């Protein structure tokens, strides 16, 4: 993380989903009552995929499938044994069943992932954003980590991994701000004009790998910067209010919020 102030896509998304959650988590520093099982699952799954691609970068061949599974199990065990307990919401399976699901998903992934030319795994960035209207640099820098950079046909493609209940919808693919931020970050950090790709592994009974190349234009970039700027201004102004809804289920700050 940079020494100064920063903002991440995750922070922006958190504020947009529920400003009160943002306040409790980031501003007040309230300790979460539990770790949502889906969050722990996603982190462990990312770790397994990072192991797969990291081995390609080092040796040119993917990590063996059994080791990919071991990577997940180790990360999952670490999360389960952490100070903060895991907790499912009512729609989730129990933590034990999650391991079986992950194994099934990782088999599907390994069968379809192939051996791309890996440039970087877990590629961190810190860039300066500029106000779209005034050109002034924002005080907060944008930070983040790109899951995977691969080279295809002479250019870099930023790949974002997701483990999700179902395939992404058109709207999710079209409007998710994360790849937009990555496109800006890639250019600002010298990677040039990059391709953007979602690689989504579904948690469905028969897991599927959805690979979608997406496009973000100048308008989308400006929208993202305006969104980030607006959120930062709202935070600065002390705007905070709860949004009650589906997001309250499985929110680790709910007990503090009410």
């Amino acid at each position, binding site marked *: 993380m940079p020494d100064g102030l920063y903002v991440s896509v995750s922070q922006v998304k958190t504020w947009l989903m529920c400003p009160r959650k943002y306040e409790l988590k980031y501003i007040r*520093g309230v300790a979460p009552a539990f770790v949502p099982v889906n969050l722990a699952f996603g982190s462990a799954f990312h770790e397994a995929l990072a192991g797969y691609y990291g081995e390609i970068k080092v040796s040119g061949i993917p990590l063996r499938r059994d080791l990919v599974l071991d990577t997940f199990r180790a990360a999952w065990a670490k999360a389960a044994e952490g100070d903060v307990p895991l907790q499912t919401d009512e729609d989730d399976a129990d933590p034990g069943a999650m391991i079986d699901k992950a194994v099934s998903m990782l088999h599907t992934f390994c069968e379809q992932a192939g051996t791309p030319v890996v440039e970087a795994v877990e590629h961190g960035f810190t860039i300066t954003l500029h106000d779209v209207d005034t050109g002034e640099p924002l005080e907060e820098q944008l930070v983040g980590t790109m899951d995977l950079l691969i080279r295809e046909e002479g250019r870099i493609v930023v790949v974002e991994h997701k483990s999700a209940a179902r395939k992404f919808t058109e709207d999710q693919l079209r409007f998710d701000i994360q790849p937009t931020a990555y496109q800006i970050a890639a250019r600002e950090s010298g990677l040039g004009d990059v391709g953007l790709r979602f690689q989504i592994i579904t948690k469905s009974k028969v897991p599927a790998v959805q690979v979608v190349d997406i496009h973000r234009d100048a308008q989308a970039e400006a929208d993202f910067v305006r969104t980030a700027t607006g959120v930062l201004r709202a935070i600065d102004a002390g705007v905070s209010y709860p949004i009650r809804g589906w997001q309250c289920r499985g929110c680790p700050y709910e007990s503090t919020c009410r």
Partner: protein
Amino acid sequence: MTNEEKRKIYLQLAGPFPEHCIQRTEGRLTGRGYDTTGIGYQHIANRLNEVLGVGGWRAHRTVTVKEITRSNGRPAFEAICDITLELGEWIDGQFIVFAESLADGGHLASSEADARKGSYTNAFKKAAAFFGVGRQAYEGSLDDDNLPGDHVVQTVQPAAVQPVQRPALIATPVGVPHAPVMQQPRAAPAPTRNRLTSKQLGAIGAIARKLGLDQPALRAATKQRFNAQPEFLTREQASQMISSLSQQAGNGHDNADGMHEPGMEG
């Protein structure tokens, strides 16, 4: 033409437009940073034709275009149009002018064609407003309850509509060589920032390290005192924190090691 005839023409030109002629934009949707209300360009032209007849007016224009680089590094075109709008009639192949107005308009766009087009329509509408056509847009009387603040963000007006902003001057008598120019909207200042700066945060971290406070201890301290993490202190709170930490470090307010609170440099 008598003054009475001119007065009647003016009243016809300056009459209000029906609702469907009014265009409104929201800054949050256009990205311009301000809401606008104005009369559509074609409705202005229609009014001139209806009152003066086809051929009863004409416009001369000069458009200058400059290629610029936006703050995000992308190229754009900034066009400025100087226009002379003449009212009159054709007699024996000669256009005999009885009134004219001079105006300018600007527009910023990603393509040169759009920039030229936008600057022209902006200039045209402003010149027509000098004769009263669509003057309500400049008077701010279209939507009295929808006036923006003192400043609007963009320095160049949008293509289709004019900002609801009262022009500094509106009248342009015939024969005056240069029409008064409406003030260009100026960039709005960012809202006053309350949150601490990166420099303040860095100063807090540096003094804390000097005191042997690790990150969790520092976070606990700011939470206990201000109910906030260090990154979310206000400037004032950060200033207080720097002062108290400095005192603990034995520096008092002299800021040893050349460390000055941001904003206090020099």
